[in-house]
């Protein structure tokens, strides 16, 4: 994947599509298939379905969806970003030494296998938003940019939903207090949606 990926004007397309429909969560953001180079085809082969973000008032939260690779070559996501958070990490959930499931950065990024898909979901791989720049309220749109190995990128927009799960433990590397993502976005969140503290 050392070939340079040409990034087609996907974000513009996605934005135009949103403006036209004016509304409902874009459940899929298929990439245009017009690009001429092989790397562009690889980037264009990426699609997302069911994208959503857990609504949160502050701190951290998670982004989810299904990434689909329609090409014959693996695609690797090496990073992600959004205006909604200072940083986004690619996380997996794995068992720690004590047997508890914990979130941790995914070494080597997310690989979406050729003709396959990668599910980002609570309790498993996900996009970890850290340092929210503003409350992510239910119904809001959050646009992500995925950086692909080789230099291309892929944008998609996810809708924020109230969600009581996705409370996996996350231990910050500096040894600070453990946190889980998804502070309740409002008083409207159901009882039980409060993040579980995991500093033990």
């Amino acid at each position: 994947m050392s070939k340079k990926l040409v990034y087609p004007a996907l974000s513009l397309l996605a934005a135009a599509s949103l403006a036209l429909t004016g509304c409902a969560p874009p459940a899929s953001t298929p990439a245009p298939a017009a690009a001429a180079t092989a790397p562009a085809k690889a980037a264009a082969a990426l699609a997302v379905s069911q994208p959503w973000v857990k609504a949160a008032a502050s701190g951290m939260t998670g982004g989810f969806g299904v990434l689909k690779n329609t090409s014959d070559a693996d695609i690797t996501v090496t990073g992600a970003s959004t205006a909604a958070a200072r940083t986004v990490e690619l996380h997996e959930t794995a068992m720690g030494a004590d047997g508890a499931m914990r979130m941790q950065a995914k070494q080597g990024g997310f690989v979406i296998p050729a003709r396959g898909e990668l599910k980002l979901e609570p309790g498993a791989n996900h996009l970890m938003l850290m340092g929210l720049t503003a409350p992510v309220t239910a119904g809001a749109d959050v646009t992500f940019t995925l950086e692909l190995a080789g230099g291309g990128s892929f944008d998609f927009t996810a809708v924020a939903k109230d969600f009581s799960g996705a409370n996996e433990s996350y231990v910050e590397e500096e040894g600070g207090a453990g946190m889980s993502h998804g502070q309740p976005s409002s008083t409207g969140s159901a009882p039980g949606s409060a993040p579980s503290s995991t500093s033990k």
Partner: protein
Amino acid sequence: MSAGDQRPAGATADSDETGAPRKLPRRGLLFGGAAAGLGALAAAGAHLSGAGIQQAANTAAADPADNVHGGGVVAFYGDRQAGITTAAQAHGVFVALDLRPGTTRSGVRALLRLLSDDAANLCAGQQALADTEGELARVPARLTVTFGFGPGLVAAVDPARAPGWLQPLPAFSVDRLRPEFSHGDLLLQICADDPLTVAHAQRMLLKDSRSFATVRWVQTGFRRAYGSEKSGTTMRNLFGQVDGTSNPAPDSTDHEHVVWGGGDIRPWVDNGTSVVIRRIAMNLDKWDEVDRVGREESMGRRLSNGAPLTGTREHDEPDFKVVSKLGFPVISDVSHLRRARPEDSSQRIFRRAYNYDAAPGAGGVSDSGLIFVSFQADVDRQFTPIQRRLDEMDMLNQWTTPVGSAVFAIPPGCREGGFVGEGMFA
């Protein structure tokens, strides 16, 4: 079933709201097997959400004799909302929400977007976004979700759009209204032929409402189970009466005019209508005291098949001029049939009621009745005059008591990628 085959279990050839053969969910086309190439992906557009769930491992192979019909799909998207002209499903729940204080126009918009997307997925037999019990969505069972707007919601979005009739009905002398069954800002009418499907849809929609609204009331109703009798059979209420005989048939011009407007009756918005929901308590204990002749006289119809007392078949036209040997009208002047029948042909409504049977209060054995649901283009012109006549005199009033009442404006449907109510934000 292959991993790519996303057809809901037991899919059947039901028709959608327009009577056209329904389409299968599009996800199968998009993500199904080798045939779905990039071209199909690009062409199929933006709406692609729902289940990543494979056919549940515990789904038994259908016995041909089982006649499984849980896969029936009613199209969510369309010019008009489903769940009105749609043949009434076996189960219905009516949920009224109150907007949280301070909910803004943009908040209402976000709420309606979220709920429309949930409804579209669930009605197609796909799990909603962030659906934690997505397996339950696999049996749509003709699920419909119909949204209605109360005065508070319209006021929060654009007060100038509120139709004149969007307010509580006039007070009627028979009313004993209770706040826990009355009014509300947003109505969710959720109907399906499977109660588990209804419950899951209700849960999903309410989870996505929490930040914006609180539950004001919930009324759960039922009819005969799907398949118990021929579809299209007029329902019976818990008095045993055939209830709804004079409804204009959904494919008729009458129905079109009554529900969607026509002639000099205009709907509040094209492809919109209104709904009146009244909870009518039926006193079964007092009804028990009435013999069969008295029961039929109070209604003006036969219990056996709903025929008017002057006819033999259900849909025979009643003849109010026929008198008995003693000179009394065969159909009493104070029967429900006679009192409800308008002289003015514009005073017609389309009923889509459900029975309810709640837990009895202390010392009682039943708390039963009817969730009266009627659609009409103009509440003031069509519904209220009928209710005034029934309020003045109707033998059935001896055994029935309205305990809840609500009026909602029904907005048009939406297209894929849109949301119900979007026209109010234009």
